[in-house]
């Protein structure tokens, strides 16, 4: 009788252990990773300045000229940005207009237009190549075309540049 009791207990333990082992379980890890980029900033650094212009005579400011417009960008290292522009077709002085066009552009990772990468500013995005720099200077030039009967006055327009990471 005592032997039978011991045997029953042994069977119960054996069955219990066997059932537990049927639930095979294992684990593995992966990582979730992200890189937060530094804030992208754009600053209008220099106005595009044509100075005095003569009626009937076109005047061009090139990106390497002192009157070129300049925007400064700060960005994350090793990240590319896409540039796009809102450009005026005319400068205005009250009700008078002065046509402006033939836009030129160049961007550089140093604060000089020398050696800048040329592009044509437009509403379409212009992608800069990925660089190790954290600062880009963008230079803008254009041509104004005063009419022979152009009204005298100070003419202005707004050039807007937008930058986004791509």
């Amino acid at each position: 009788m005592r032997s039978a009791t011991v045997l029953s207990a042994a069977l119960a333990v054996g069955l219990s252990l066997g059932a537990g082992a049927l639930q095979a379980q294992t684990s593995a890890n992966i990582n979730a990773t992200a890189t937060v980029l530094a804030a992208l900033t754009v600053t209008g650094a220099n106005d595009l300045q044509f100075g005095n212009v003569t009626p009937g005579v076109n005047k061009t400011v090139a990106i390497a000229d002192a009157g070129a417009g300049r925007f400064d960008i700060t960005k994350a290292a090793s990240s590319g940005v896409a540039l796009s522009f809102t450009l005026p077709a005319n400068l205005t002085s009250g009700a008078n207009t002065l046509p402006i066009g033939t836009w030129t552009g160049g961007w550089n990772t140093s604060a000089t237009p020398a050696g800048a990468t040329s592009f044509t500013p437009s509403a379409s995005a212009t992608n800069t190549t990925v660089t190790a720099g954290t600062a880009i200077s963008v230079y803008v030039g254009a041509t104004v075309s005063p009419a022979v009967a152009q009204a005298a006055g100070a003419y202005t327009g707004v050039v807007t540049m937008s930058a986004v990471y791509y």
Partner: protein
Amino acid sequence: MRIWILVACGMLVSPAMPAAAQVSVAGIRNLAFGSVIIGIPSTVAPSDAIRSGQYRFTAPAGARVRIDFDLPSQLNGPASARLPIKFGKTDAIVVGNAPGSVPTVLDPNPKANQKFDMGTNTAANIFLGGTVTPAGNQAPGSYVATIVLTVTIQ
């Protein structure tokens, strides 16, 4: 007589031991959000062939397995900075290795009590997506956290 009983007990226990080797899991690919922009949430879909996280597990054909994720609520960054991460109810997909296996969408969140019937499959891949939400003043830098997958044969 008592010696005979001990031997019998040992025989009852031993056949169950190989069961522990019936399931295996390996981490294949990290869930990689890549570059994210301050103030803009970034989502990786589980169907993303490059950035989604991936595990591969094996289990016997015909088995039912339970799938449990240990998910982080934030990634750890520079100088104790934290980047919140969330997982939606459809952010996991499991696909068996048998021909014609149909992808099954899973909720990876804890207590979802997800099960997967192996059917004729002997292995399966689990793909994981998620969403990180950088704050407007999120510190730039690299962030990381560990995601644990546990597979249990039922």
